[in-house]
Structures are given as C-alpha cells and as structure tokens.
C-alpha cells in the first residue's frame, strides 16, 4: 500500500524534521514560515496562531478569488452588457438594445459560420470516437509487444499546438507534391493526381477534419484505454461461458461498461469542436477559406471584434456560442450523471 506507506513516513519522520527545513522566507510569519518564534510573548503567539488557522482558507483562496472576479466574472457580466451596444471604438459606444442579436439572425455570413461549426463538430465526433475506440481496442492486450511505443506514438500528436499543426498540415496538403497527395497517388495511381485540399470549397472541411483528427485521436485513445482496463474481467468470463461471440461480447459487455467514458468524451469533444479557431485560421492563411467554408463561429467573433472593431457585435456572437455549448451540455450532462449514479 503505497498510500499508507506515505502516511507512515509523514507521521513518523518528516513532521519531526519539518522545523529544520526552510521553504519560506521567515518574513511570512502569518502563515508561519517555520515553527513559532520563541522571542514572542506567549499570548501574542497564541493569538497569531489561532488567527492564521481561522483565516487560512481565506488566505489560500484570496488571490484566486480576486483574479476570478476581475478576469472571469466581471468580464462575463461586462460582455453580456457589451452585446447590447454598437461599438465603433473603445470610446464611442451606442446603446442599441437587442439589435445585435436581431441582426445576427439575418446575417448570412454568421449563419454560414454556425453551419460550418456544427458540420465540423458533428463530423469530428462521429469520426474521432470510433477511431479512438478502435485504436484502444487494438492496444488493449497486456501481452502486446511494443504496446507502450504505440501508445506513445499515438498520443504524441496531442502535444503539438493547434497553430503548429495548422502550419504543418498546410504544407502536407500541398497539391500534387505534398506528402498526403503523394500517399494517395501511391495507393490509387489513377485518382490522386492533384487534390486542391485548401482551395476547393468542398474539400475545405475535410482538410480541417484531417488535421483535427490527427491531433485528437490518440488523446481519446488514452482515455478509452483507461476505461477498457477498468472493465470487470469477470464480465468477460461470464460472456465466454454464455457463448457470446467476439461482436456480442463487445456489444453487450464492453460497450455498456465504457458508456460513461463514451459520453464524457463526446461531450468534451463537442465543446472543444465548437470552439474551433486556430486550425482553419492558420490553414487558410488568416482568411475565411474558399467560399467562406473555413469560417467558424470563433473566427467570426475574432474578425468582427478585432478586425472590424465592433466589440459589441462580437460579444453577441460569443453569447450565441455560449448558448450552443449550454444546449449541448444540458443534454449531455444529465446523461453523464444518470450513468454514474447507477
């Protein structure tokens, strides 16, 4: 029991030695840099001691709370308020009520960006989940050789930031000479001559999807692997006894057992996907892509807010995004809970 061992070590040795270790400058006496000072009169020492133990949670939380209020709660309220203004510059604002939202509903570019975002999110989830799960199933054999090598290989893509992935894929997807087209040409010699990945409206989204999947399939695999290893082995034994086939075992034992993880990953993936920004932004060289097919909601928010400068309109776009995420989580969270309760 490693945990108990640690407690023992702490109780037995370390606490006794603590007085001699100096981690903090002694000036921080409020939290007690080290053992109470001996040159202080007894009552003062006791007052200080009770003071610090009484207010400790406040001191631990204070910096965090201050920042939370200043840089999260206040800006949130402010942006709700800001979405009711027309902003020409930080000093020139005019109250227009709900006009921003009214205009959004008729804004074709915005509606296009919503459609693109939803298209991406749904396609992403439908592809990422099965791929990650498939990989995890292939890797879920303790006796498999090079298992850790594979695991590392699949996961390593997740370390690369979205901007860098965008840069790499913009070059990988170069028509005809890029590695992706070369690979297609090698497998289907008649088909892959020259694919205009980044300049054709139909292929814009598949190109983004390809990069997004490259980032996140291995990441999902790690989670599925953890879930698969937590499945009760007795269930598999029971399935064998009952004469279930490979597919039957998967459908009736594995899938229900990892269902909580499935839902969790779907929810997290959806929330991540509707916030898509960097990949298309870099892939299409800071434009909205061919025929605007690379435009996502966050991209539109950025273009309207920073490019055009109407921070009010951008806030309104942001709140529509909040609404979408809220809808997804309101549907998704209860599903998540209901399973865990059982």
């Amino acid at each position: 029991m490693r945990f108990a061992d640690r407690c023992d070590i702490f109780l037995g040795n370390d606490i006794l030695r603590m007085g001699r270790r100096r981690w903090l400058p002694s000036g921080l006496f409020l939290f007690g840099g080290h053992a109470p000072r001996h040159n202080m009169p007894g009552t003062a020492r006791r007052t200080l001691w009770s003071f610090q133990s009484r207010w400790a949670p406040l001191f631990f939380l204070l910096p965090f709370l201050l920042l939370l209020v200043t840089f999260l709660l206040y800006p949130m309220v402010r942006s709700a308020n800001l979405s009711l203004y027309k902003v020409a510059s930080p000093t020139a604002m005019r109250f227009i009520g709900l006009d921003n939202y009214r205009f959004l509903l008729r804004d074709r570019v915005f509606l296009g960006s919503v459609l693109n975002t939803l298209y991406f999110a749904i396609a992403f989830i439908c592809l990422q989940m099965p791929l990650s799960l498939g990989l995890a199933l292939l890797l879920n054999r303790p006796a498999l050789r090079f298992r850790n090598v594979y695991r590392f290989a699949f996961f390593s893509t997740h370390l690369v930031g979205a901007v860098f992935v965008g840069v790499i894929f913009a070059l990988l997807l170069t028509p005809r000479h890029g590695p992706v087209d070369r690979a297609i040409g090698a497998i289907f010699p008649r088909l892959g001559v020259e694919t205009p990945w980044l300049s054709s409206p139909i292929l814009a989204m598949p190109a983004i999807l390809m990069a997004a999947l490259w980032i996140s399939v291995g990441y999902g695999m790690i989670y599925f692997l953890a879930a698969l290893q937590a499945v009760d082995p007795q269930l598999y034994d029971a399935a064998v006894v009952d004469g279930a086939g490979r597919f039957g075992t998967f459908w009736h034992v594995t899938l229900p057992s990892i269902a909580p993880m499935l839902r969790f990953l779907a929810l997290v993936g959806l929330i991540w996907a509707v916030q898509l920004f960097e990949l298309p932004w870099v892939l299409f060289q800071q434009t909205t892509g061919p025929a605007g097919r690379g435009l996502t909601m966050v991209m539109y928010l950025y273009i309207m807010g920073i490019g055009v400068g109407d921070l009010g309109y951008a806030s309104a776009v942001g709140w529509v995004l909040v609404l979408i995420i809220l809808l997804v989580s309101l549907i998704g969270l209860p599903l998540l809970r209901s399973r865990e309760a059982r």
Partner: protein
Amino acid sequence: MTVRIRRAALHGALALMATISLGPFLWLVCASFKRDDDIFRYLLLPWREPSRWTLGNFSALWRRYPFFDWLCNSLFLACAQTCIVVVLSSMAGFALAKYRFRFRRLLIGVLLASMLLPYQVLLPSLRLMMHQLGWINSYAAILLPSSVSAFGALLFMQAMWQVPDELLQAARIDGCSEWRLWWEIALPMVRPMLGAYTLLSFMASWNSYLWPQIVLQSEQKYTLPIGLANMMAMGEQQIPYGPLMAGTLLSILPVAALFFVLQRDFIAGLASGSIKG
C-alpha cells in the same frame, strides 16, 4: 499459424496508424533541413546528395525574423504562466478540499459552471478592459487573465480530498502552520497530478494563440505561435517554407522535452483523473 497471421495483421495495422501519427513529425524534421526548392521534390531527404542538406533555414530564422525574441518570449510567458497557475489553483484546491467555510459549495458551483463557459465570449470585454487599463501590448495582459483556472482548482480539489484529515491534524499539533500543510504535505502527496497539471498548463500557455494575438501588437513581443502564423500569412509573398518548418520544429521541441521528463506522471494522471469523471 492463424495466430501468427493475426498477430502480424494487428502489428501491421498498428504500424500503419503509427506511421500516420509520426509521419508528419518525420517530414517536418526532414523539411527543415532541405532547401526551399527541394522541400516538395524529395519526400524526405535527398539521401544520395548530402550536399543538398542545409542548415540555412535555421540561420535564416535568426537573420530575417526576430525568432530568438519569440522563443524567449514564449519560454518566459509559459514558465511564468505555469508557476502562477499551478500555485494559485493548488492553493485554491487545497482550501476547497480541506476546510469547511461558508459559500464553499457556492464557489464550487461557480467554478463548475465557468468550466463550461467558452472563454472566447470574454475576449471582447477583456480586450476593452485591457484598453482602458492601458495594458495593450504588455505581458501583464496575457499573464493575469489566464492565471485563473477553474479546471485546475477543481482538479487539485479532487486530488487533495485523498489527503487524510488526521495527517493534517497531527501536523498541526506538532506546530506545523497552515501554509506548510499545503506546501509540505498536501502538494507532495498529489505529486502525480501535479506533474500532469504542470505539463498541461505549460502546453496550454505555450500553444495559446488567440488571446496573445489580440493583445500583442509589436513584432518583438510576439510569441512563437503568433510569429509562425504570421509567417504563413504574408499575403502575396511566397511562403518561406524552409524557415517556417525549422521554426515549427524548434517550437515543438521544448514541449516534447518536457513531456519526456514528466511522461509517466502525465499519462497516469490523465487517465486516473478521468475515470472518476
């Protein structure tokens, strides 16, 4: 026999997937040592003609772009950001897990709710705030708003629930201050999670693009993602493929190095945190 064939097929499939995963890395490394006109001519490197290999891309990065500035900026911001976030959220997590006080449940509720909030909705109002504070083009505008992480606080809260109360009480009786309870008992006990979270927040800061791009204006202050993204989008000019690839390679390496150091903690922490939901 069939077992052997099946095993070979399994390894074949896995190797193919691994190639897809690692191939872009390999191509990136090769591309950064090729001349611009060779990048697409050879799939990897021109093996037969070592004279065509070049280090010119790296030197071009230094000569033609303020790449060294970007690298230093990114390193500084990521390190500072990581320290601030880890310290603040572990302190908050410790307080939430190990003390009873008023509004505790309310605070946890607020944190949970704010995890669902897409941070992009804050960007317009934060931008306005930074303008009014006069913080545009300063690093305070990057460090402070991203230093509060509800996710981190909740993660530490969850991990520190395991620290036994008896242990803390025993330490208190021995004269240990609350501050040191956190630093010398609670933090060491959640070490795996600490490692994972450190790497996670370093990556988040190192790769962050949208907010720094909004705040920073002068090229000398850019971070790596901004610099490289702008190298990509030079308008009508030809994209400088070689330097771009070299820069990307150099931008990925630090995170990869940190990952190697913290790897075991990281994957373990990632998986264990998730199982509990």
